[in-house]
């Protein structure tokens, strides 16, 4: 469903506050396909306690249509402090309107204002939609590889 120019003009990007939490949790569940309510609640607690977390929301005509989550932090593998994109999502009916691009651009702008020169992320290898978006934005493979192993009881 394409948005009208009036709807596009009504888009507002803003820093999220506690009143956005419930809507973010709902939208994130739709985007991700599973609930991460505890993750978001914990995140907002960290944010309230003072951190380098950035939670941005995109509202169209007052309705939450997108979000982006990032943080400035160091990483223990031969890299200076950098900006991390933890999550970004746009409501399905509002895609292809450059809203994710607007959120990403705003997040990177915040990173830049804080002296960050590199943005990184880790995503699901099978999340083709997100990977395509990030590559179209200009991201490409970095110098790290994620490795893991099961350590629980078999």
């Amino acid at each position, binding site marked *: 469903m394409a948005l009208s120019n009036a709807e*596009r*003009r009504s*888009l*507002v*990007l*803003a*820093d*999220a*506050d*506690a009143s956005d939490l419930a809507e973010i949790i709902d939208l994130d569940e739709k985007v991700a396909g599973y609930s991460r309510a505890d993750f978001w609640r914990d995140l907002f607690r960290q*944010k*309230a306690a003072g951190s380098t977390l950035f939670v941005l929301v995109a509202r169209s005509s007052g309705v939450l249509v997108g979000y982006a989550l990032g943080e400035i932090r160091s990483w223990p593998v031969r890299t200076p402090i950098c900006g991390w994109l933890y999550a970004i999502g746009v409501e399905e009916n509002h895609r292809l309107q*450059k809203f994710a*691009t*607007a959120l990403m*651009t*705003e997040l*990177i702008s915040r990173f830049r204002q804080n002296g960050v020169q590199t943005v990184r992320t880790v995503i699901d*290898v*099978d999340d*083709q939609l997100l*990977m*395509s978006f990030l*590559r*179209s934005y*200009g991201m*490409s*493979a970095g110098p790290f590889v994620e490795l893991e192993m099961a350590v629980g009881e078999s």
Partner: protein
Amino acid sequence: MKLQQATRYAIWAVIELASRPNEQIRAQELAQTFHISHNHLVRILHALAKAKIVSSARGPGGGFSFCGDAKRLTLYDIICLFETGWPREEDQDLRPGNTLVSELARVLHEVDRITSATLRSVTVRTIIDSAQRRSKPHQQIAADLAQYSPPYRTTTAET
């Protein structure tokens, strides 16, 4: 990743044609651009035409043009047209009873999975845009991205 010659030429041709929309480009010109065999390229272009990725027009001023969706067509789509037996069937080497072979197959599958995901995520449009982006100074990139701010209004409400 080792691609067949025909696959590489097909990708080159598609990207070149897609980067020049509304142009009819003769196979001879493409062949000269890439320093490759004209006859070989024509066969590749006909295969791409059959897949409805390029179209051809005969006569003076005729040639080949891109007719696909550059924002949807991925490198994976093009590669699959020309590479046989790729991507490998998952778990084809996971034969029970030979743990060494199975372990090696797991590692190769790990590589294939990342390769496949990467190729599926890179569209023709992304290649063209990335090439243009890399040829620009950093300040121009920032200016280009800034175009996505208007008509958006940004607030910086404190939490």
